[in-house]
Each structure stands twice: as structure tokens, then as C-alpha cells.
């Protein structure tokens, strides 16, 4: 299956950040479960009077896994990689521990511990971990059947017991894998959408600044705030009985906003460096600065409490491939979308056929359009190009 790139490549970083943020909590849960398993195993061995060497051996086995866990969490402050590595190592180690337990005790009653290990490892919600432990599970079962056949020599006369056990173990594994896989996908859904919304916000702010800059009537070009702020901060300094520490920087910001050469400003204010000016440039309100971005963000932010119905509403999910929409609506949406992008809205450039094709076919956007429609577009891109090119040519000749 082709790997599609993300529509905004930067989302990859925030997705990793979310992964890292939640992995620590998941790691704690897994470590707690392993600790619990260790206590139960040691308690059983003590009660059943197993040799001290065996008890210490099992205790050490579990402790090594736990110590590796704690060390990885500590090192993850340095690099996220350690936490990632930890989930793979812990999963494999836990499965190995369970396998050793089954072989040591020589009892089928310990086989369900493999199911428990699978459930514990699936807390990580990681596809690679899932595939790894699934293979390990299958390998363990085959190995037990071949080398430790006596483990399945139960005290009953059920005719097809071997077949039944094999079938139900396989069925259980398939269900467990599917269940864990869908849970991983649910998590990915949120990670994808949050990182996408974050990047979209960043780009929305940049586009809004661009739009505002284009508007001649915008207040950002009309007002002079520096004089009034100077007076205000002067009074504030007097109130504190100190000399005005803001004056010089305010003057520099004003000069930067009036496009005075930086070299001239540096000559006038020798205590300031080039880096200082670059930083102060981000405080201009009449340019595309970080401060402008912050202003727009504050303007649109509202802290409100969301109702459960509002939070889980399906309306937040934007797609042209909704199950509730008919095929006609899906076709209409795609066509309108495609033609508007080709033609371009005011203030936005029209996109080329190649840009459209590449994004529709090769990015994750294709999942938001019905696969049948995408297939028709992919197979008939030339037809689509010819039809829309006629439109753009028409527009140019009209102009």
C-alpha cells in the first residue's frame, strides 16, 4: 500500500510530541502492571515453597525489566528515542518472561499469562509493538506445541480438543489484534487531527496577516501607538520612582516601524546589538511580526466550557466522504472543490494541474474523498485538465 504524505509536512513533529507526551503515562501503567505480575509470581512461589534460587531468579528477571523502564524514562528527558526503544524492549522482555514462566512451571495454567502479556503490551497503542508481540505470540504457541507437547495433554476425553484449542487460540489472537489495532487507529485519529489543526492555525494566522496587510484601510497602517505608550510607561516609572527603562526600546521599535535602516539605528544606540533589533522587529504591529500573530490569536480565543454533545459531535470532522452523504453529494463536493481551487478565490492564486493532482493523489487528502471518485480522477486526469483549462482560458480572455 502506498504511503501518503501529510498535507502539512510539519504536522509530523507535533504528532511525535503528542506521542511522547502520552507515552510517559502509558509507560507508568505498563510498569505498574509488570510490578503487579512480579508480586503475584513471587507470592505464589513463596507460598508453594519453590527453591530460593528460583524465586530470586524470577524476581531479578522482573526487576531488570523494571529498572530498564525507569532508566529509559530518565534518559527520555535527553531524547525521545529512549522511551520509544523502551516499549519495544519491555514488550519483548515481558513476553519472554511469561514464556520462561510457562516452561519453568510446566503447567498449562500459565499459558493465559501470554494473553495477559499481550493485553499489557497493547497499552502502548503502537502498531509495531502489536505486530511484534503477535509474531512472538504465534511463535510461542508453535514452540510450546512442538517442544512441550505434554502441556496440552489435558485430563479430558474431548474428541477434537487439539483442533478446538488451536482454532480458539487463533480466533482469540485475531480478535485481540484487530481490537488493539483499531484502538491504535482511534488514537492516531486524534493525533492527526490535533496536529493538523495546530498547523492550520499557524498558517491561518499567516494568511490573515497577509490579508490585513493588503487592505489599505486597515488600522494597522494608520495608528501611532508609540507616543501614547511612552507617556503611559513614563507615568508608570514615576509611580515606581525609577527612570523610564522602556524609552530607548520604544524609540527603536518606532524607528523600525518607520523603516529606518538598522545600521543607522545601531549607530544611534550603540548598546543594542543586531540580535536585539531582530527581536524588537517581532514587536511591530504594522508588519508581519510575531506580535501581530499573537494579537490575532488573542482576538479569536475564547475560553468556554464545552458540553459533552458538542465535544463528541461529528460536525467537527470535515470530509467529502461522509457515510451520511449520497454519492451525488460526494461528486458535487469534489467537483466544486476541484474547480474552485483551479480558478482561485480573490486574494488566492489559482493552482496548477500538477499541484492539484499531486496533492489529491499523493497526500492524505485522498482519504477525505470517495475512493471511486479519486480513482476516476486519477485515471482521467487529462480529461479533467482539459475541461478546467478551457475555463481558465475563458476567464483570461474575458479579462
Amino acid at each position, binding site marked *: 500500500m502506498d504511503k501518503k504524505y501529510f498535507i502539512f509536512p510539519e504536522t509530523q513533529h507535533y504528532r511525535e510530541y503528542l506521542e511522547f507526551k502520552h507515552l510517559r503515562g502509558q509507560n507508568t501503567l505498563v510498569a505498574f502492571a509488570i510490578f503487579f505480575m512480579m508480586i503475584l509470581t513471587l507470592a505464589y512461589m513463596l507460598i508453594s515453597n519453590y527453591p530460593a534460587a528460583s524465586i530470586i531468579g524470577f524476581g531479578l528477571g522482573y526487576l531488570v525489566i523494571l529498572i530498564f523502564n525507569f532508566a529509559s524514562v530518565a534518559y527520555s528527558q535527553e531524547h525521545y528515542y529512549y522511551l520509544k526503544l523502551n516499549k519495544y524492549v519491555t514488550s519483548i522482555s515481558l513476553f519472554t518472561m511469561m514464556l520462561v514462566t510457562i516452561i519453568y512451571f510446566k503447567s498449562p495454567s500459565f499459558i493465559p499469562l501470554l494473553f495477559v502479556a499481550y493485553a499489557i503490551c497493547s497499552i502502548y497503542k503502537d502498531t509495531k509493538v502489536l505486530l511484534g508481540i503477535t509474531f512472538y505470540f504465534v511463535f510461542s504457541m508453535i514452540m510450546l506445541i512442538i517442544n512441550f507437547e505434554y502441556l496440552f495433554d489435558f485430563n479430558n476425553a474431548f474428541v477434537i480438543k487439539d483442533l478446538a484449542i488451536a482454532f480458539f487460540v487463533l480466533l482469540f489472537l485475531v*480478535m485481540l489484534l484487530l481490537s488493539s489495532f483499531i484502538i491504535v487507529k482511534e488514537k492516531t485519529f486524534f493525533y492527526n487531527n490535533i496536529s493538523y489543526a495546530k498547523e492550520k492555525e499557524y498558517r491561518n494566522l499567516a494568511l490573515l496577516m497577509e490579508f490585513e496587510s493588503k487592505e489599505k484601510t486597515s*488600522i494597522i497602517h494608520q495608528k501611532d501607538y508609540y507616543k501614547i505608550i511612552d507617556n503611559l510607561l513614563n507615568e*508608570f516609572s514615576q509611580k515606581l520612582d525609577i527612570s523610564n527603562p522602556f524609552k530607548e526600546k520604544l524609540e527603536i521599535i518606532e524607528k523600525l516601524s518607520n523603516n529606518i535602516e538598522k545600521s543607522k539605528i545601531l549607530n544611534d544606540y550603540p548598546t543594542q546589538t543586531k540580535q536585539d533589533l531582530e527581536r524588537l522587529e517581532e514587536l511591530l*504591529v504594522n508588519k508581519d511580526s510575531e506580535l501581530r500573530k499573537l494579537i490575532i490569536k*488573542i482576538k479569536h480565543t475564547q475560553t468556554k466550557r464545552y458540553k459533552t454533545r458538542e465535544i463528541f459531535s461529528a460536525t467537527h470532522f470535515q470530509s467529502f466522504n*461522509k457515510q451520511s452523504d449520497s454519492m451525488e453529494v460526494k461528486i458535487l*463536493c469534489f467537483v466544486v472543490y476541484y474547480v474552485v481551487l483551479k480558478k482561485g478565490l480573490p*486574494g488566492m492564486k489559482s493552482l496548477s494541474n500538477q499541484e492539484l493532482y499531486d496533492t489529491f493523489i499523493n497526500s492524505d487528502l485522498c482519504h477525505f474523498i470517495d475512493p471511486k471518485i479519486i480513482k476516476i480522477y486519477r485515471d482521467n486526469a487529462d480529461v479533467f485538465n482539459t475541461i478546467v483549462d478551457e475555463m481558465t482560458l475563458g476567464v483570461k480572455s474575458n479579462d
Partner: protein
Amino acid sequence: MINFIKKVLHSEFLPISEVRKLKVHIVMSFLFILTLVTIPFSFFLNYSTLIKVLSIAVFALFYLLCVILVRFNKIFTAIQISIIYSVLLMVFYTTGISSFYAYIFFYITLTIIVFYQEIYSYFLYGTLTLVLGILYTSSYSEGLMLQNDVEGSVFIYIAGLVIYYLVSFIQILNNEKLYADLNIEWVKMNNLNINYQDEMLYHIEDMRAEMKKSPIYEDLEFQKVAFELSEFIAEQVLKDGKQITNLIDLYIYIHEKGLESVLKNDEISIAMKKNSNILGKYLLNQNSDMFSMIISFYLKFHQTKEYKSNRYIYNVENITSLTDEQIISFCLIYFYLSDEISESKGLDSFKSEEKSIDDIFNKIDMNEFFSEQVITFYNDNIDLLKKYNEKKG
């Protein structure tokens, strides 16, 4: 089948409601296989023929009920029915038989219930399965043991089941909390983006008026191409391609007349009103899903700075670490936003009824945008700021 597998593999692109439906389909397929297997398998079970036939008939009925519920989009009920169905299958397979395979069935049922990730369903049916599992293991332990099995093997079987139940329960609780938090974060971000797009739509309309251009949906070339392309796709996907022409006509008509007036018009049929309601999400002259997706696509080709770890941090501390510069920034924000409120054009971009800059600062979490020092400066100097704001006029 291939489409179904593709859907499972790409389920991260489906909304939660559709994933829930997908889960029911998976469990249904699973139960279908199990029910089919039950027919030959029942020959080896110690039931009378009548019981076997009746049981299989009941399973078939349950399956049919699930299919009907899914067909009518009653997903929650379908989930409950499919869980009861799996519990009944478990009872059928385990009653009167002492075997390791029957013991595994308790894990299978628990996994099906876990799959749905519903706390109450798990608590109810999961606990029931666990209790039945414990009773089964204690009553039919002889078939689960070897000749010389280890001491207390029955308790190990029970402990395995209990731990599996507990680990699954913890996982559901953890997921519930995680998904609720992520969902809130996502909804917040979405609402913010909707607010930005409101203002963007306003700017686009302004620019269009300045360019003296007609709206895109009134452009005859646009309409012609939309009709041609729709018909081209519809001919290959649908049996009747004519419906699409009527739908595009309606789509353009809604733009011209407005959705509300179309819905209020008594001369328009109920079917058309239903379609109009659906198309309302995709209008070009509103901040709709269509507008939002157009902006997203366009933003992909918008120049952007290289990624840095502080890319999504919007706080004056992120711009400058120096307190004097932060205070200057705050004053600039204060006066600039005050002007935006008082300017009639600025008012259009404020969604709620803020009358003053202080109203804006009251509705946001100041800590998200300003440092402690700046917030203290604001709180200690509200009167001074107001005084100069009035002076500024």
C-alpha cells in the same frame, strides 16, 4: 471485502461514529464465523439435538437483529446486542464441557467487549463474563489440568482471567480519559480555526468587491465546468447521471437565494429541502466545510517558516524573555485591540459582544499569552491603561 480491509487499515481517517460502526461490522463478521463453526462443532457437544437446533436458531436470530440495527443506524443498540450474542455463544460453548478451549472462550468474550471501549458495557458484561469464568474454572477444573499439575493451578487459571479483566479495564479507563482530553483539545482548535476563517471570508468578500468581480458560483464558466465534470464522474459511478445536474442546479440556487429562504419556501418539495440541508455544509459563500477545506488546500501552498519546536507557542515570553519588552508588547496589544473594538470594521471580526479590551482579557486565559510579570503589570495598572486609552481616543 478489499474495501472493508482498506477501511480498517485507514480507520484513522474516519470519525468516531463511523469507527464505532466499523467495530460492529468486525464483531459481526467474527460472530458470523463463530456461528458457522458452531454447526459442525455442535456434533461434539453434549446437548440434545433439539437444544442444538434451537441454540443455532437463536444465534441466527440475534445475528439478523444486529444486521437490521446496523442497517437502521442504531449502532449503540447493535453494540449491546452483539455483546449479548457473544456472551450467549460463550455460555453455549462452555456449558457441560471441561476443556481448555472453553476456558479460552472467556478471554474471547472479554476481548469483544473491550473492543467497543464502552465503560458501562464492560463493567456490566465484562464482570458477568469474569464471574462466569471463575465459576466455570472452579467447577470444571479437572479438564484444565495435567496428570501431575502444579499446586493451585485452578487459582492460577482464575488469576490469569482476573488480571486480564483488570488490565483491560484499566486500558478502557485510560483510553476514555485520553480520548476525552484529546477530543476537547481538537474541538477547541477547530473552533479557533472557524473563527479565523470567519474573518478570512470577510476579507475575501472585501477583496472581491474591490476587484468588482461576481461571486464564483455566479460565474458561467465555473457552472459549465462543474456540470461537465459532475456528469463525467456520475456517468461512471452512478446508474442515472441526470440526478447530479439537478443537484448542482439546486446548489447554485441555494447560493443565490440563501439556505434559510429555500428551507422556508413552501413551494419546494421536502426531498429538495432535505438535499438543501445537506448541501448547506458545503456552500461557498459561508464559513462551511467546503470553505474550510478550500482554505486548507490553499494553505498547503502558502509560504511558511521552517519548523521550530516553539512553532505553536503563542506567548510574549516566546517572542522576548525581557520583562521591559514584554510590557511594551502588552501595551501595544492593549491599545491595538482597543482600537479594533471601537472601529466599526473591527467589530465585525469580534464574534461576541465585547465592549472593551478588558472584556477580551476576561474571556481568555491570560497565562496562555502573558508572563506572570505582565499579568501583574496589567492588574496593578488597569486604571492607568484605561486613562491613556481614553486619552488616545
